């Protein structure tokens, strides 16, 4: 990703090696297939992607979860619904009685062949996380595809009808905001208030939390930065916004990312960059070793400026 020399390199910004502090989130990327091709997608997911987790690797994930007390299962993609074994895998994860999250593109749930997931998610009390990048229809559609804004509104209504996003329902609906260009997200608190007001007043929709996630300079977003001549300026913005306080709670310290092929990474971004877990910790699920992984040294690079800029960024939004 180093299309440009970054000065200072990220490694110089930390006072020493960044180490994991246990594994709280077992993030499983079951494949890169998606029916959308969002312009900010670091995965570069799309309908043509063939990378899908095999059933033996899914079974290995379940076995590890059964034998450990990792509290959070975070299933991502692509959009997980397009994996043919996902219904089975979701049920199996649900029986483990952990906090279970699914990152869906949302609009897939409007398709007849996938609509059953709406009830399946509610039945298993799965926390749903859906990308909703902007409250302006034109901008959201520009980023995620024509018609996505309207479809998201429809999906959110269906989820609300089932209790999602409503107080005391136990059904959590979280939205994700990504900037629609070469700038950083605003403060989560401010954007969440804006989203809440617009969605409630204009569409009668409620949700639990908004996660603001900084776009990483990798994948499709990197291509956009380079072709629009924004790369240098964006990286400079990230470097200038570096906030050392975020290092304490940056998500890689408590997350293990499992790729579709069973390789292990410190985060989803390292996964796309091919930077597997290293420094003596096992890099494949077939040789999973909790003791070695729980306090492993994190593999970092200049893209890590993305998670440490300003208020910080993680798969759960701003770093608290």
């Amino acid at each position, binding site marked *: 990703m180093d299309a440009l020399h970054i000065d200072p390199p990220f490694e110089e910004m930390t006072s020493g090696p960044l180490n994991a502090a246990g594994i709280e989130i077992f993030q499983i990327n079951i494949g890169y297939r998606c029916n959308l091709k969002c312009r900010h997608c670091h995965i570069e997911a799309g309908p043509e992607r063939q990378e899908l987790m095999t059933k033996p690797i899914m079974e290995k994930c379940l076995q590890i979860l059964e034998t450990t007390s990792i509290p959070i299962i975070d299933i991502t993609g692509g959009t997980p619904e397009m994996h043919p074994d996902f219904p089975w895998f979701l049920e199996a994860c649900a029986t483990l009685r952990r906090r279970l999250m699914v990152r869906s593109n949302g609009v897939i749930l409007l398709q007849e062949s996938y609509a059953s997931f709406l009830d399946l998610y509610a039945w298993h009390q799965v926390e749903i996380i859906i990308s909703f990048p*902007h*409250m*302006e229809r034109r901008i959201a559609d520009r980023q995620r595809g024509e018609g996505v804004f309207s479809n998201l509104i429809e999906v959110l209504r269906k989820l609300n009808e089932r209790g999602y996003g409503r107080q005391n329902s136990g059904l959590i609906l979280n939205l994700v905001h990504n*900037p629609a260009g070469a700038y*950083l997200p*605003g*403060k989560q608190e*401010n954007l969440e*208030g804006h989203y809440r007001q617009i969605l409630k007043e204009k569409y009668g929709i409620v949700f639990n939390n908004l996660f603001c996630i900084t776009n990483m300079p990798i994948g499709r977003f990197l291509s956009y930065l380079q072709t629009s001549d924004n790369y240098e300026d964006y990286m*400079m913005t990230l470097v200038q916004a570096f906030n050392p306080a975020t290092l304490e709670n940056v998500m890689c310290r408590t997350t293990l990312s499992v790729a579709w092929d069973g390789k292990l990474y410190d985060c989803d971004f390292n996964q796309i960059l091919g930077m597997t877990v290293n420094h003596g910790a096992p890099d494949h699920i077939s040789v999973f070793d909790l003791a070695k992984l729980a306090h492993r040294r994190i593999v970092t690079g200049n893209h890590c400026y993305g998670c440490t800029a300003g208020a910080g960024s993680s798969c759960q939004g701003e770093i608290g």
Partner: protein
Amino acid sequence: MANYYEQKDLADFPNIGEYAPELGKKYFDYYGETMKADKLSVREKSLIALAVATTQKCPYCIDAYTNQCLSLGISQEEMMEAVHVGAALVAGVVLAHSTQMRKIIKKKEM
């Protein structure tokens, strides 16, 4: 001194307290407190700041507050409307000063 204004100089803004650190600190405290959400939201304050930045023709502030408005999900139409408020006020200020001109004309003409 080939270029008076350079984009990278925006990064120097935190250093404006150099040579007068106490005054610099007072300024930043005041600035920080002013821009927080209070009776006006951060969105409203950012649009005001953008309008002032354009009327004052400050390239650093225009850069900073255009980015800030984008970050807050403010639409391009809302931003342009704020700029027009600034433009209308500036135009009004100019036209209001024609009062002096008109008064002089009326006094001087036979």
